[in-house]
């Protein structure tokens, strides 16, 4: 066991049992999985992405490139989770990933022997030929070999939630700077949200043996936490801000239940937050850089700051004989902390020669050999570190036997959230890293994220930034006292690569990118850091190169002889850290993917065999399965026949209904429709067609005049919202001088078409004489209003089916009752409910245009409605409908089609070519838009657009469908197949 006898913030009275690769271990409450594994001497945790090299734990945070595991089992199995961020819970099950066979004897590690094949760009260079093998062989093999974890493969049993939060000041990160900023802003009176990715407040303070005002930092954290609570600060732990967006909007994921075996009752696993902040203080801290030397990926090589975290926060010694390799003063703190924890400190190696004397003295006092002006050229040991080779400037090499090497290349401020909106980070020669540059409006950066690493600076600048944020919003600054922090030093020297390395040196451990890959990319011309990233995959995947990018970019700068400012760094985009797809979807999955709209008669339809179809968000009955029916065509034929011979009932509530009122209502409609509405009498309806501005047909429907200044416009279901928008635009922007008001009343009314020769009889029975539905009282295209059975109603004499027909509208609360009453009144008359399929068949039989014809490419003339176009008034689309291209007599126009050989099925989409002509595009004369089996005619019929169609009635053409391999001779006919005189509508 490597657990220290004392120390750390773990609860030693609360043991936690867990398994890794099936073996049982015990840790403590407060451990991460990584800490508990190290406490149990498990240092080999996974295999690398490409070469399947043995890998351990490099870091103690979300930047971890190596220690990725599959967490949980079964449906909750989650791949690529970072052992360094997983909170230990009782019964946790984790498994290593990316190996065939056991973790120790991974059969895929043979890849390492072929590593010359797998250099940067190998995807693009290898497996090019023969092409046929790509799908069958190369891709599956590569996917198998190069994957990391496995997804669960079954539906996620957990739920995910979404929520919004608003504040004056958002503080991102609860380290010393963030705590100070949140406190200062809140004390000034601002509404503050403090978001922290960790499960504890404190940030780096949790990992260090630092003091504030002479007391352990933990005391200050506790006191500050209490003050934040007293000021009403909303503290969001386990909440990772993953992206900055326009308008002060931030995306965040709260891991509500990830630290539990399973979410509690009604608890989501994670919650996605959209946080809107007037001001933001970014205190995201810094991430330590690794050093690039031979075997730097060997388990046992660990970032120096992470070593301190394991020692001081978790009370775990990650090794027994340790050395430190650091290019800055900060790494020396690890040497001192290791010695203080009782770990044998063998050596401290620093490429610099001018190191503060007190650091050297402290290391020597701990018994370490101090080697200045020296580097670790190679770490050796394969699955566990055994030896390091240290090379001095004069080339002399010394080997040390160690099982832990703490490395530090300096610290990189976490600037990503300051750059998501396009800000460019700026290079600093002082800290040898990038600073935030110009953050987006409303954001300031404080503490280590701004390159101020010293604790005293974090506290001071944090307080200042929090105060400034509040003052900027008009709050009065609350005074804050200066805190006295223990002194620390931060000088470092750049060391991008150890040149004396003999073995493979990794720049990006997660993607197995070596220093040689960077050189190769440069040689092949991929010198931009963005090209370098795509060519080598440097900085991709879950860690996004947080410990590695800078080394790679600096190497490229060195190779190309450019400065770091010239070289730049890759664009950082949201998400800053991995985000599960589930939390982005939230509860919108399965049938709840989008909201549903249900008519008042939905339940009745469902109870009576309706099969529903989506019409936008609406659910509409497509047809009704009568008992014993299994073939949709049988049902549809029955519904059409019943309507044409008796009476059918169709729910048409989903059609758009727009109420138009005002003294200028008629003038308004005159400008929207191609035909005139001013002369429509009160109590009458008229069919109208609207064009788009470009002169093409847009939407059709009827408008009923209810009063001199009152119309009710109907639209198609599909276009209801867009027509409403267009009318609002016309009313508010185009013709503000008109006194007209419009509002959607679609949802107010349930409306039922009652169609067929017995429809009048049905309504007479329904109304029992209370309403006169005779032709004299309510002729074709008439409308009347009244009250019946305690409900207002509107009754229209409209027909889409071509039969004697009515549409009855009632307020939606009576929709269910009215539908049942209609059906009851039709008992004995053969009343039959019909769905959208039968509706479609009857409209094709009647030659009415539908969505397939109103398809955005047709003119009124194309559709045979050209004569409706008024010559005496202006309307939307009039001018452009006269364009030469739209008035060309050769344009395909609307006609009907019948197969020459009876019984042959027609297909929508088939193209027309002249008999004897080749089926090639040059001979194309139009296409079939709609087809249906006509129960009335007993054959398939079609509607379509044929070049000069109306002049060619009686001709024969081919309906050629190369997609389905069909070629059918059809006769051109008038588009109205049933009752062409319209006799059934009247009388």
């Amino acid at each position, binding site marked *: 066991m490597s657990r220290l006898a004392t120390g750390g913030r773990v609860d030693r009275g609360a043991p936690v049992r867990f398994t890794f690769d099936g073996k049982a271990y015990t840790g403590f409450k407060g451990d991460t999985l990584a800490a508990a594994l190290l406490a149990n001497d498990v240092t080999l945790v996974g295999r690398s992405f490409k070469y399947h090299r043995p890998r351990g734990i490099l870091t103690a945070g979300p930047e971890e490139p190596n220690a990725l595991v599959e967490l949980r089992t079964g449906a909750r199995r989650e791949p690529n989770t970072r052992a360094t961020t997983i909170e230990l819970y009782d019964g946790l099950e984790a498994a290593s990933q990316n190996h065939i066979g056991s973790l120790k004897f991974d059969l895929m590690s043979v890849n390492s022997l072929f590593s010359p094949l797998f250099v940067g760009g190998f995807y693009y260079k290898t497996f090019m030929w023969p092409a046929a093998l790509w799908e069958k062989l190369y891709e599956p093999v590569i996917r198998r070999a190069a994957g990391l974890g496995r997804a669960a493969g079954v539906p996620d049993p957990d*739920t995910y*939630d*979404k*929520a*919004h*939060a*608003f504040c004056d000041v958002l503080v991102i990160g609860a380290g010393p700077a963030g705590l100070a900023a949140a406190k200062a802003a809140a004390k000034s009176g601002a*509404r503050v949200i403090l978001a922290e990715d960790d499960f504890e407040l404190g940030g780096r303070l949790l990992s260090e043996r630092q003091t504030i005002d002479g007391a352990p930092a933990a005391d200050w954290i506790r006191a500050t936490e209490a003050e934040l609570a007293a000021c009403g600060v909303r503290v969001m732990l386990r909440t990772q801000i993953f992206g900055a967006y326009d308008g002060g909007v931030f995306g965040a994921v709260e891991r509500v239940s990830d630290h539990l075996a399973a979410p509690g009752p*009604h*608890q*989501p696993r994670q919650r996605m937050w*959209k946080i*809107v902040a007037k001001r933001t203080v970014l205190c995201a801290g810094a991430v330590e850089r690794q050093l690039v030397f031979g075997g730097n990926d060997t388990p046992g090589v660990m970032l120096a700051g992470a070593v301190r975290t394991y020692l001081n926060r978790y009370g775990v010694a990650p090794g027994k004989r340790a050395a430190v390799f650091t290019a800055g003063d900060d790494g020396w703190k690890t040497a001192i902390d290791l010695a203080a924890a009782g770990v044998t400190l063998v050596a401290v190696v620093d490429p610099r020669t001018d190191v503060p004397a007190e650091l050297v003295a402290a290391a020597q006092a701990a018994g370490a050999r101090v080697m200045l002006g020296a580097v670790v050229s190679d770490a050796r040991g394969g699955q566990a570190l055994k030896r390091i080779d240290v090379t001095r400037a004069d080339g002399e090499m010394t080997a040390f036997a160690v099982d832990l090497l703490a490395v530090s290349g300096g610290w990189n401020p976490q600037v990503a959230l300051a750059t998501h909106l396009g800000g460019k980070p700026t290079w600093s020669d002082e800290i040898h890293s990038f600073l935030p540059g110009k953050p987006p409006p409303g954001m300031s950066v404080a503490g280590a994220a701004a390159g101020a690493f010293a604790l005293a600076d974090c506290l001071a600048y944090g307080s200042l930034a929090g105060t400034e944020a509040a003052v900027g919003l008009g709050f009065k600054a609350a005074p804050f006292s200066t805190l006295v922090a223990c002194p620390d030093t931060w000088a470092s020297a750049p060391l991008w690569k150890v040149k004396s390395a003999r073995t493979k040196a990794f720049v990006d451990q997660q993607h197995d990118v070596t220093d040689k890959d960077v050189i190769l990319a440069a040689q092949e011309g991929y010198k931009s850091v963005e090209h370098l990233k795509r060519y080598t995959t440097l900085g991709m995947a879950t860690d996004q190169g947080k410990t590695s990018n800078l080394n790679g970019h600096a190497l490229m700068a060195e190779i190309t002889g450019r400065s770091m400012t010239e070289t730049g760094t890759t664009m950082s985009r949201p998400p800053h850290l991995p985000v599960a797809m589930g939390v982005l979807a939230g*509860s*919108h999955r399965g049938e*709840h993917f*989008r*909201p*549903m*709209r*249900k*008519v*008042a008669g939905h*339940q009745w339809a469902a109870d009576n065999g309706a099969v529903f179809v989506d019409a936008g968000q*609406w659910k509409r009955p497509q047809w009704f399965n009568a008992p014993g029916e299994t073939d949709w065509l049988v049902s549809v034929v029955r519904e059409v026949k019943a309507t044409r011979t008796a009476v059918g009932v169709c729910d048409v509530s989903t059609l758009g209904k727009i*109420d138009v*009122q*005002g*003294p200028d209502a008629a003038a308004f409609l005159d400008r929207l429709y191609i035909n005139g509405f001013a002369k429509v009498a009160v109590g009458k309806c008229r069919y109208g067609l609207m064009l788009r501005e470009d002169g093409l047909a847009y939407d059709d429907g009827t408008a009923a005049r209810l009063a001199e200044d009152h119309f009710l416009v109907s639209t198609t279901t599909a276009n209801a919202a867009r027509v409403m928008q267009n009318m609002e635009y016309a009313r508010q922007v185009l013709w503000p001088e*008109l*006194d007209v*008001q419009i*509002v*959607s*009343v*679609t*949802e*107010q*009314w349930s409306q039922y078409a009652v169609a067929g020769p017995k429809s009048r009889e049905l309504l007479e029975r*329904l*109304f*029992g004489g*209370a309403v006169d539905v005779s032709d004299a009282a309510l002729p074709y295209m008439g409308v009347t209003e009244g009250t*019946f*059975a*305690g*409900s*207002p109603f509107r009754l229209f004499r409209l027909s889409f089916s071509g039969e004697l027909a009515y549409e009855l509208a*009632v*307020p*939606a*609360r*009576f*929709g*269910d*009752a*009215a539908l049942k*009453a209609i059906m009851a009144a039709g008992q004995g008359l053969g009343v039959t409910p019909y769905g959208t399929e039968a509706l479609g068949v009857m409209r094709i039989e009647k030659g009415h245009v539908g969505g397939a014809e109103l398809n955005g490419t047709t003119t009124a003339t194309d559709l045979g409605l050209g004569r409706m176009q008024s010559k005496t008034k202006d309307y939307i689309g009039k001018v452009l409908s006269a364009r030469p291209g739209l008035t060309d007599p050769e344009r395909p126009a609307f006609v009907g089609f019948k197969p020459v050989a009876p019984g042959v099925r027609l297909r929508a989409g088939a193209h027309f070519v002249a008999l004897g002509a080749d089926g090639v595009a040059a001979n194309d004369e139009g296409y079939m838009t709609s087809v249906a089996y006509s129960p009335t005619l007993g054959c398939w019929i079609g509607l379509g657009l044929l070049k000069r169609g109306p002049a060619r009635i009686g001709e024969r053409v081919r309906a050629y469908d190369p997609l389905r391999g069909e070629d059918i001779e059809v006769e051109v006919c008038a588009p109205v197949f049933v009752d062409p005189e319209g006799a059934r509508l009247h009388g």
Partner: protein
Amino acid sequence: MAETWQATSAFAGVAAPAHLAGAGLTATVLDNLGLASVQARKGAGVALAAKVQAAYGLDLPQHPQRVAAGEVAFVGTGPGAWMAVSEAGPLGWADRLAADLSGLASVNDQSDGYAALRLEGPAVLDVLAKGVFLDLHDSVFPPGSAAGVVIAHIGAILWRREAQVFEVLVFRSYAASFWQWVEESAAEYGLAVAR
């Protein structure tokens, strides 16, 4: 004369699932709310406000606000547009308005066009935060405030009556989908249903 048709609630079949019992959120189905859209005729704004004051004893709000007097409230829904709400019920509400405001506004009965819920309780702000992308803090959205919002992809009209009492309208056809959001969002706090 046939018997009177039975009205059906937009939230027919909706009930508090037993497993969510608790008092975090209480949802009251408002089946009997009279709703009417009122849109000012061109240039009639001042006269309309005077008429509303005279007829209903309230100041017609010129902003997204709810102003109530007795059983009647006007909710500002847009420039020159209101939802007039009567707690006395839908019967005759729009007709009365149309008569009172004749020549000054266009009026439409919307009592059936919307499904209405009152949401209240100690968790109401936490529940609403899951759907409403609007700052509902007391300092920003005090009682009397109203807004057009989108909740779970469903358009809604929301107003605040008291600190922990909100009312919301959604198009009637969305009632089931909206209720599903209420149920899911309130689950962790406990949900009770009243009518």
